C-alpha cells in the first residue's frame, strides 16, 4: 500500500465519521441520535502548542473531538494532549456553548487498523475510546465515552450496509484515479456552458471548488502541476480527440449533443479504468521531462 492509498483511507475514515452526524437511512446515524452536529473539520487549538484533531462535533452541552486513523503505527505527537482541550478553548474560538456544564469527549476512529493501533496507543498510555467503523461500528478498545448516549450507541455493534457520505471529496495527495472524475466534471461543465479554453490552474481551482482559497500557495502550485501533467496524459490517451493545448492554454471541444457527451463519458471511464494499470508516477515523471 502506498502512502497515497493510506491517505485515501484516512479521508474515507474522516468521511465515515462525519457521516454519523447525518440522519440518513442509508448509513448509521449514531452522532445524530446522540444530538451532535459537525462543528468544525480540522479545528486548530492553541493549548501550549497546536492541537489539531480531525473533527469537532458539538451538541448543546457536549463536545466530541475525533481523531481519525488509517494506519497501525503512527499516532502523532500530540494525541495524548487532546484531553487538555477545555470548554474555554472552544469559547475562545467562537464555538457556541448553549448549556453548562459542557463536557468534552475524545474518540479515536479507524478501521481494521485499530487492531494494530490499539497496542501502540496502550503503550503510550492513551486510553481514549477507540471506535472501529468497518462492516460493524462499535467501540472496541479504550475507555468508555463520558457521554452516556455515546457510550450506549457505540457499545452496541451496528452493521454498516452502505458507504459513507462523500463530504471531503479529495485532497492534493489523493491518487489520480480519485481526482480524475472531478477534473472531467469540470471539463464537461465548462463545455456545457460554452467555455472552451482554460489553464491547468483554472482547472485545479474549479475542481477543488470552495476549498481552493484555503489552500496555501505551495499546495495550489503542487495541485496545478499535478493537473497539468494529468492533462498531458489525457491528451496522449483516451481524450486526445477532445483536448488540445498551446503551452499553458488548453482547449476542450465536446459537441453540444447528448451523443457526444455520452461518448466523452465513455472515454473518461476507459481512461479511469486504464489508470488503475498505470503507475501514477510513471506519467507524471514523463510529463516533467517533456
Amino acid at each position, binding site marked *: 500500500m502506498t502512502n497515497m492509498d493510506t491517505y485515501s483511507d484516512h479521508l474515507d475514515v474522516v468521511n465515515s465519521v*462525519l457521516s454519523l452526524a*447525518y*440522519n*440518513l*437511512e*442509508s448509513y448509521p446515524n449514531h452522532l445524530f441520535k446522540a444530538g451532535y452536529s*459537525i*462543528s*468544525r*473539520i*480540522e*479545528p*486548530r487549538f492553541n493549548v501550549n502548542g497546536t492541537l489539531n484533531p480531525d473533527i*469537532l462535533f458539538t451538541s448543546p452541552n457536549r463536545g466530541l473531538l475525533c481523531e481519525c486513523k488509517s494506519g497501525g503505527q503512527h499516532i502523532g505527537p500530540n494525541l495524548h494532549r487532546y484531553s487538555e482541550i477545555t470548554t474555554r478553548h472552544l469559547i475562545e*474560538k*467562537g*464555538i457556541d456553548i448553549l448549556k453548562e456544564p459542557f463536557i468534552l469527549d475524545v474518540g479515536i476512529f479507524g478501521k481494521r487498523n485499530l487492531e494494530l493501533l490499539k497496542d501502540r496507543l496502550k503503550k503510550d498510555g492513551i486510553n481514549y475510546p477507540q471506535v472501529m467503523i468497518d462492516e460493524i461500528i462499535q467501540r472496541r478498545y479504550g475507555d468508555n465515552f463520558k457521554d452516556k448516549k455515546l457510550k450506549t450507541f457505540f457499545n452496541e455493534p451496528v452493521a454498516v450496509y*452502505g*458507504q459513507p*457520505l*462523500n*463530504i*471531503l*471529496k479529495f485532497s492534493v495527495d489523493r491518487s489520480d*484515479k*480519485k481526482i*480524475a*472524475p*472531478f477534473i*472531467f*466534471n*469540470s471539463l*464537461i*461543465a*465548462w463545455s*456545457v*456552458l*460554452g467555455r472552451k479554453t482554460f489553464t491547468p490552474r483554472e482547472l485545479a481551482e474549479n475542481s477543488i*471548488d*470552495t*476549498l481552493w*482559497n*484555503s489552500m496555501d500557495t505551495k499546495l495550489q502550485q503542487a495541485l496545478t502541476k499535478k493537473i497539468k501533467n494529468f492533462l498531458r496524459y489525457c491528451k496522449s490517451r483516451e481524450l486526445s480527440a477532445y483536448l488540445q493545448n498551446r503551452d499553458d492554454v488548453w482547449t476542450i471541444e465536446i459537441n453540444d449533443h*447528448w451523443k457526444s*457527451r*455520452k461518448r466523452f*463519458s465513455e472515454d*473518461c*471511464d476507459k481512461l*479511469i479504468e486504464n489508470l488503475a494499470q498505470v503507475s501514477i508516477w510513471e506519467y507524471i515523471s514523463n510529463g516533467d521531462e517533456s
Partner: protein
Amino acid sequence: MEKSINSNLQSMEEKGEYSEYAVKTNIIEANCSITDIPSVFADYKIQLKPTQDKFLYVMIVQKGAEVFTLYIDTFLTRFWKVYNIEESSTMNKFIEQFTNNLLKIDSLWMPHQMLNTLENLYTNIGFSIKFKQEVLEETDLSENDISQLTMRLWSKGSNPAKAIITLLEENGYPTTKTSTRLLNIEDSEIKFLDEVFFDGKVTVAKGTDIEEHIRFVDHIIDDYSEKMTRVEEKRMYLESTSFGFKNYGYPFEIKFSQPQKIEKISNKLINSTKPFRLWGVIHDKEDNFLRIAGVDTHTGDKFNMDIMSEFIRVYLPKNACGNVIFRLYTNLQHSFDPGVIINDEHGHLF
C-alpha cells in the same frame, strides 16, 4: 391580451369545457435573464418586444410559415409566466424546444405529491396518470411490476377521482399523476376550472375572470418556490474559517420502493439524455455501490451522486440550481419507480 382572453373564455363558455385554443400559462424556471435568450434556436426564430410594463414582453415566434405570439411576465426573475392562447400542440412543441434547447431554462417538474397538495384546496374533478418503465427491461420486471399505466379521468365532483385513486393504491398500481383538474367554486360561482400539469402548464377550461387564473398560477409558483428554497438551502459546501472548516448543507436521500440494479439506474440517469439530462462519470464502484461525479447538462452545474440498490444520495454543491432535484425525482416517479420517496434532513421533501 386580456380582451382576447376574455373573448376566448366567453367562446369556451358557449362551446363547453373543451377547447384546443384555451388560455394557457406555462411556468418556466429560469436562471438567466430574458435578454440572454438567443433569437434563433432549434427551428424557431424569436423576437422580443418590450411593453410599457417593464417585466412584460411580447414574444413573436416564427417557425417556417407559422407565426404565433406569447406574452412573458418576468416579474418573478426565477419563474416566468408565459401566457398564450395558441393551439395546444403548437405550444407544447415550442415549450419542449424552449426548455430543452436553451441553457438555464427549464420547465417545472412537479412530482405527484405537489399536484395532490393543490387538490386539498380545490375540488378535484379529474386527473391524468402516466407511468412508463423506461429504466428496466420487461425481463427485469416481476409479475407484480407494472411496466406501463396511462389513464385520464374526468368526473363530476371529487368523489369518483378519490375512489379511483384509492382503488389503484389498494392494488399497488402507480398513482403518479401528471396532471390534475381543479374546480374553484366560491358562493356557487365557478371561479375557474383549470388543469395543472406536472411540467408547469396550466390550462383554463372554465372561468369568469382571468385574474382568478393568474392568482392560481401564482399560488403554484409560491408552492414550487418554497420547495426550491428548501432544496437550495441544502446545498453542500465547506467554508474555511479561522478555526477549521465549517460544513453546510445536507444530501438528499432517495429511497426506492424495492431493491434495484444499480448499473441499470446509472446507465439511464447519467447518459445525458432526456428527461434526466444528467452527465456523469463513475469514480467509485463497489458491490451495490456507485459514486458518480456529475453535471446537469441543463445548467452546467455540478452534482455528486451515490447509487445503492435501495437508495440514491444526491449532493448539490454551492450555487447549483435546485431544479435538478425536482427533475430527477419526478422523472424517477414517472419512468422508474412510482413508489420512490425523497428525504432531506427534515423528512419527506414532497
